[in-house]
């Protein structure tokens, strides 16, 4: 979706405020918010792509002004509500209306849970459509759902740098449509192709793009 999260190439956000010796969390509640969204019981079929999509549904003004972990609370609330695991009434009242479940991840399972080997790579029988070095154009498209093709690359021409194998397609996975794996490629775009003649001719930007995002150039 074309909203504020897709901010590559925008102007106006000012200088980068890099803090020295920054702690992992600035306030205790940030860690609680992060932890909830990592070790809570997830609804069936929940994916990292759904997580990212839900963050994108945050109102643009709040996306820009809310603390990062406050946005995680929003994501947790949204996924609990949409899955029916928590009702709006329960959330508003802060009191449960259902019996307590007993299958939440326990503390001694967290390390193993964080180190499970699940990943987005998938086997795919079809041969990759593109080869290393081939010129490709990122499609011009405006999906209203989740996608990982940023606006700044759409319609631009680059070349295939590497093939990562096949991976889960976020555009499908974010919307409950399964993995629908596709070949995934690293694509190099010259900075001048993306940004025009003022860009440094030596510089380039690389994006990992799924096959359906690309067409031969």
């Amino acid at each position, binding site marked *: 979706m074309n909203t504020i999260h897709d901010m*590559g190439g925008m102007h106006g956000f000012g200088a980068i405020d890099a803090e020295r010796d920054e702690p*992992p969390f600035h306030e205790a509640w940030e860690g609680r918010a992060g932890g909830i969204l990592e070790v809570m019981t997830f609804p069936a079929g929940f994916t990292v792509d759904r997580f990212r999509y839900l963050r994108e549904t945050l109102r643009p003004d709040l996306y820009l002004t809310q*603390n990062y972990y*406050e946005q995680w*609370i929003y994501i947790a609330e949204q996924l609990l509500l949409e899955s029916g695991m928590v009702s709006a009434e329960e959330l508003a009242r802060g009191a*449960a209306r*259902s019996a307590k479940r007993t299958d939440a991840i326990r503390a001694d399972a967290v390390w193993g849970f964080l180190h499970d080997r699940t990943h987005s790579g998938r086997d795919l029988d079809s041969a990759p459509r593109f080869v290393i070095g081939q010129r490709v154009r990122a499609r011009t498209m405006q999906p209203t759902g989740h996608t990982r093709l940023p606006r700044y690359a759409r319609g631009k021409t680059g070349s295939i740098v590497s093939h990562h194998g096949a991976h889960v397609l976020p555009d499908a996975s974010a919307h409950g449509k399964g993995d629908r794996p596709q070949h995934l490629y690293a694509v190099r775009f010259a900075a001048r192709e993306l940004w025009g003649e003022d860009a440094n001719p030596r510089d380039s930007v*690389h994006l990992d*793009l799924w096959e359906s995002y690309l067409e031969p150039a």
Partner: protein
Amino acid sequence: MTQHSHAHDHDHDLAHHHDIHSELPSDPALRVKALESLLTEKGLVDPAAIDAWIEVYESKIGPRNGAKVVAKAWVDPAYKERLLRDGSNAIHELDFHGRQGQHIVAVENTPDVHNLVVCTLCSCYPLSVLGLPPAWYKSAPYRSRAVIDPRGVLKEFGLELPDHVKIRVWDSTAEIRYLVLPERPAGTERLSEEQLAALVTRDSMIGVGKVAAK
């Protein structure tokens, strides 16, 4: 079915998110406390598991992991070759697995090439080797500017690259995570792998800094 709804049928779940802000505490600390207590009551989260998760990222998984990878690549040419050819497996050799670490590509800085990693769309970061990302990495200024103005961004981090250096920006749009292999600083020939690891900074592995010999 109207034409409009038909056209958007494939995105049936769009814009159905719940507008709950008016009913919830505006203070995030209170809001997260209420959520944790509700989820605990429903048995959907164990507070001790949240404690354990926090402890992992406060004290167990951080940029020291990545620094060990870099130092090993500096002293062991065969390891460096494996790291650049198949980053995931070379990093798994050191037993660094886990979240956002199953597909890692290491990109090498040289006197002629400088790599810089960003996630313009959210905050993707190689957690298994660098821990949690710093706030600036997740911020609008960095995400918006790293792709269009990498040299200006680097200058803000105190790094002014000669004009002949090629900058390669890596926008982490998929589940591939990028780790920059920084240049080994001159004058460190006598240092052990452990001493070298102590020099490697988080910023150098994102690409916004160089490693100094101290």
